[in-house]
């Protein structure tokens, strides 16, 4: 009897081992890639763009990887828990896609030195934490050209969230783009002190339109400015995503950012064991910044000009902040023949000539 028992037991142990081995084998087959999102994916906006990138990654490397995303993760302690859970459940590469995830990401990365982390829009890196961000200002410059050509009142409206260098850079690039084709334009800026408040974004857009702006753009996250422009019969230039379905007539184009190529490249590097911590700031050249399809109302010559400028920026023969650039007081901030360094771009705290009003301090 005893030997029988032993036999059964040993067979059982063998089975468990085999089962365990095969399970771990199938998990190790594919690289697990995790994504942490700040908001629901929805069908336009910041998180939507990141998710498009994730889907493209799956399409490109689907046989070698599995992806998982967690949406609506608030910044703070909750983020740390989510990131840690992903690392614990075997995700070797984790993308955290909001600025406020910076410290939680670094904290978890310290606990899991063998895993790879990529944090979007942050400025702190570690041995196993890289950062990535897009050169949004390149897209802004291009949309500025469109706005400068399409305006009749020479007044452009800009709904802005918070006076930080990222947003100011966008306003300046947009203004420079518009002024390059129409020196008489002025850009009116309204700060709503919120990233996402459709009510306020709408009120601000309405105020801008009443004050004569006939092209509205925004550095906030909702579709409210495009909706308002459509309703009031003026033009809109969207941000993040193609929002043309919210304003078929109003929507001229949108400054969008895409992540598919970056996600694919980074994941491939982890698969090849060649991944290194880096700070990536990619733009038109790398395919990270694209304009949404142009509205049919835009004349062909404007489309051609935008295409040419896009090519020049990609080739490096043109820089949106190429001198001479003057600030509001008329002082030259970038001399002719020079262009702004990345460091100066990242710390930008002044308006260029053509923007109305002052930066709130």
């Amino acid at each position, binding site marked *: 009897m005893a030997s029988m028992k032993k036999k059964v037991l040993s067979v059982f142990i063998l089975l468990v081992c085999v089962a365990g081995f095969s399970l771990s084998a199938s998990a190790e087959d594919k690289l697990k890639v995790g994504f942490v999102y700040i*908001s*629901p994916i*929805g*069908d*336009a*906006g910041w998180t939507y763009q990141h998710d498009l990138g994730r889907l493209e990654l799956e399409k490109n490397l689907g046989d070698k990887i599995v992806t998982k995303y967690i949406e*609506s993760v608030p910044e703070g302690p909750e983020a740390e828990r989510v990131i840690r859970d992903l690392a614990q459940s075997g995700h070797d590469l984790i993308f955290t896609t909001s600025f406020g995830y910076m410290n939680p990401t670094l904290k978890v990365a310290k606990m899991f030195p063998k895993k790879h982390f990529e944090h979007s829009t942050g400025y702190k890196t570690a041995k196993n934490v890289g950062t990535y961000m897009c050169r949004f200002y390149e897209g802004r410059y291009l949309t500025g050209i469109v706005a400068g050509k399409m305006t009749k009142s020479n007044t452009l*409206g800009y709904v802005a969230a918070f*006076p930080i260098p990222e947003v100011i850079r966008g306003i300046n690039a947009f203004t420079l783009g518009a002024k390059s084709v129409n020196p008489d334009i002025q850009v*009116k*800026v*309204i*700060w*709503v*002190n*919120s990233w*996402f*408040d*459709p*009510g*306020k974004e*709408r*009120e*601000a857009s*309405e*105020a*801008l339109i*009443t*004050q004569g*702006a006939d092209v509205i753009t925004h550095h906030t996250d*909702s*579709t*409210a400015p495009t*909706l308002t422009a459509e*309703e009031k019969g003026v033009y809109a230039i969207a941000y993040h995503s193609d929002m043309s*379905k*919210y304003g078929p007539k109003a929507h001229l184009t949108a400054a969008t950012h895409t992540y598919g190529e970056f996600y694919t490249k980074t994941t491939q590097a982890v698969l090849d064991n060649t991944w290194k911590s880096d700070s990536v700031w990619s733009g038109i050249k790398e395919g990270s910044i694209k304009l949404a399809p142009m509205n049919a109302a835009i004349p062909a010559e404007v489309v051609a000009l935008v295409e040419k400028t896009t090519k020049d920026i990609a080739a490096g023969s043109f820089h949106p902040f190429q001198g001479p650039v003057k600030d509001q007081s008329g002082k030259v901030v970038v001399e002719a023949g020079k262009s702004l360094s990345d460091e100066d771009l990242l710390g930008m705290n002044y308006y260029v000539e053509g923007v*109305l*009003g*002052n930066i*709130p*301090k």
Partner: protein
Amino acid sequence: MDFEIFIHILIAAIAAGTPFVYAALGELITEKSGVLNLGVEGMMLVGAISGFIAMAKTGSLLVAVLCGMAAGALMAGIFAVLTLTLMANQVASGLALTIFGVGLSAFLGLDYTSIALGGVADINIPFLSTLPVVGQLFFSHDILIYSSGVLFVAISWFLYKSKAGLLLRGIGEAPKSAHALGYNVIKIRYIAVLVGGAMAGLGGVYLSVAYTPMWVEGMVAGRGWVSLALVVFASWRPARVMLGAYLFGAITIAQFHVQGFGIDIPAQLLSMLPYVATIVVLVVISRDRNTIRLNSPASLGITYHPDNQ
């Protein structure tokens, strides 16, 4: 600033103030019965998403309004059961209702985030709408704005001219006396709380279906709390609530225009202005102590036990 822009600010102010009119007048009725419901923000959010879903599914404004009001009343019903039947603390229950409403609306709205609706068309009234200034100001809005005005008149009449309104105010002042006279205090308070909830829900529907018109998690963005404050600072009087709501709306819109003109006042200071100005104005006009004592319901926030008399 030219005249046209001034008129535009006033027109936009009426639209911006309307969610407050609904929610604050609803809360006023609730508070007049002696119940303090701090869950306005939560009820508005649940009303907003319910109305939005109804509008997206049926395309009928009437269905959207009814669904939003029902959802707001349902939320208020939870509060009523907790505080009126189970005698729970009103402040704690109201806060819990807000937290619950924030979460529930986000959950219900998951599939509806960043969908856009067509909005609600303005109704122009023949002849009146063509009047200069007045026509633009008062007679070219959507139906939800007109009905907020009608509701204001109805509520003012109800509270101060009808017997039922007198009873409601009486219960807020002295529930024991009302009980002694044979009135069912708990039942009447239930009705007041449900009406308040339905109106908060309607305020939410206005925001999501007519004003923005879209659904985003947390889109009420503190308007429920502002409505609560309006009731107190207006010393529980409907006309002052109305004034406060439009004043808040007007200053919100005006500060955007100030920015657009490039006038050098920090934007952060400007976004604070609607709150400060509304509070100052309402406190100044309501500073008379006797008026406050006369109008604030004496039993506000106090749990009433009908059996322990």
